[in-house]
């Protein structure tokens, strides 16, 4: 763990990963990965396809157990035995598929699995009015003004869907948001929308883990950058320790790319 001194915005440390490792049989998917997630900070996890990003977040979100190292939440080492356990500690994951049902209305999606009800026994029924009101209010807080919370989620744009998912996680008490490639499938404009929501979530004091393979998306919002390559950590930097050019350089293959550039240069001359 590198000592952070580049003026940390954040509050207390929520998650600390210490030399985390994960094997699938004989294959090592992840080894020696360490980083920190603080309240009010964005920790970016960067890496190319197959770098181990999704394995890492699956460990953080409780889908997989780690085989080596320590996962420390609120100062105590934990082993999650499922996504529920992680959720109970306030660690919520917004998956690439967003855990949304495209054909269902926004408000039904928003409360899916945690529906509000009123009445008792056989008369226990959904409190539709309250759920619609809360959905709209929470979306407004994220800066999304949807005219109609009854429209199916499938009719929303990608960025809007992301923000609904984020708003939902926040509403249900998330302290740490794990965002799995939220900008991957989006155009430049939509990605900008999502980045704004990430900043918004950070400003509300949430710890955000932002997984991406795009350093241009990570750099403007990140407070901490974890770089992964082939299941290993290329470094875990605080905001002041690395600039965008370095980030791009490391991401795009670093030393390997230098070599490639040399080769190509030679051929040309």
């Amino acid at each position, binding site marked *: 763990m590198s000592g952070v001194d580049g003026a940390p915005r954040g509050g207390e440390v929520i998650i600390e990963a210490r030399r985390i490792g994960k094997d699938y049989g004989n294959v090592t998917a992840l080894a020696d990965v360490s980083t920190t997630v603080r309240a009010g900070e964005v920790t970016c996890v960067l890496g190319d396809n197959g770098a181990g990003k999704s394995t890492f977040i699956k460990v953080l979100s409780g889908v997989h157990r780690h085989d080596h190292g320590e996962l420390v939440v609120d100062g105590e080492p934990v082993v999650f035995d499922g996504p529920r356990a992680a959720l109970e500690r306030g660690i919520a994951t917004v998956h690439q598929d967003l855990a949304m049902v495209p054909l269902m209305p926004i408000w039904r999606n928003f*409360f899916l699995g945690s529906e509000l009800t009123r009445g008792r026994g056989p008369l226990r029924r959904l409190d539709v009015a309250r759920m619609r009101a809360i959905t709209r*209010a929470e979306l407004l*807080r994220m800066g999304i003004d949807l005219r109609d919370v009854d429209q199916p989620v499938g*009719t929303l744009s990608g960025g809007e869907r992301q923000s609904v998912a984020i708003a939902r996680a926040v509403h249900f008490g998330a302290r740490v948001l794990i965002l799995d490639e939220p900008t991957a499938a989006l155009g430049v404009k939509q990605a900008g*929308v999502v980045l704004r929501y990430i900043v918004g979530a950070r400003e509300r004091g949430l710890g955000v883990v932002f997984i991406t393979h795009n350093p241009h998306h990570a750099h403007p919002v990140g407070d901490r950058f974890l770089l992964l390559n082939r299941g290993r950590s290329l470094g875990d930097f605080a905001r002041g320790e690395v600039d965008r050019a370095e980030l791009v350089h490391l991401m795009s293959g670093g030393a390997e790319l230098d070599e490639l550039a040399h080769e190509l240069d030679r051929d040309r001359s």
Partner: protein
Amino acid sequence: MGTSTGAAEPLPGARRPTVPRASLRVRLLRRPEVGALAAAVAVFVFFSLVTDTFLTPQGVATWLESAALFGIMAVAVSMLMIGGEFDLSTGVMVGSTGLLTGVLATHAGVNVWVAVVVSLVAALAVGLVNGLLVVRTGLPSFIVTLGTFFVLQGLNLALTKAVTGQVAVQGMTGAAGFWDARWLFGSSMRLGPATFQVSILWWALFTAACTWVLLRTRAGNWIFAAGGEARSARHSGVPVLRTKVGLFALTAFAGWLVGMLSLFRTTTVQASTGVGVEFVYIICAVVGGCLLTGGFGSAIGGALGALIYGMTYQGIVFAGWDNNWLKAFLGVMLLAAVAVNTSVRRRAHTAGAARTARTSPHVAAAGGSPGGAALDPEGEVRR
């Protein structure tokens, strides 16, 4: 599209804020059953004009009863299809429950009420087996329930023959408690010159109950989610497997109900009852707006689908058309109904999607396969 970053607006607590709604037209058009409603009205008007009898009280009583027996099953099958599964054992289940009740009452000397309850328990057990097999093995429900279909069909014939020596249950009227139970399942009411069967009432009640469950309870939310996107639903904490097993039990219950209504209506059941009818239920559900891929539809839609079927089936006879053409007429009617249905629904979605409708629900749904959800490697199946 969103405007600025989240300014900390206070949440409106428990007070009733006005949440804007889409216009009534859009909301109406967005309902899955709107197409079926239009088609039902079309079929109704058509036969009212073409035949003299269709609109008479007796005529109405006839096609309503015809629709009722299909409708109860179609509503349950709609629920199951919304939940992303199929059940092919629905038709023979009608026969099985009727036969079991009949055999117990006529050959085991059991009181009819007891026999009715025993067959309900048996039906629910079959439903549970269907459901558990589907969610535990991860096999498509089409295959699993096809197996149940054959098993039940064989049992119906073999056991009935073995116990009664015939292929139909006879002599129900002499069994203890028959007339009491008949009041519940087989009575009829005279309304003016027409006699209406009690099954019509059961149909209405069952449809209302299922609609309420689907739209106004947590279970209903879970059914839509389980069928629409099982993985997402599971990630959100929806008990997908339990929901699906419950749905199979519901269709089994409906099979039992229709079995009782048939048994007490005619006082007899044949071992071949219900074979081949299972597809009619699925057709009714699809005509009623259910997507074959799950996650979309309504209980009322299934009821309307059955109404269209019942009106067409009896309407063709009212019209006195050659019986040999019946299936062809039915097919054309159903295709027309589906066409109306689809075009109305498509318009509903273009009208309903106020903003960039990149993913039409149809396209989105095509991605998820019903019945395949249990194969999810991260799913609960592992346990």
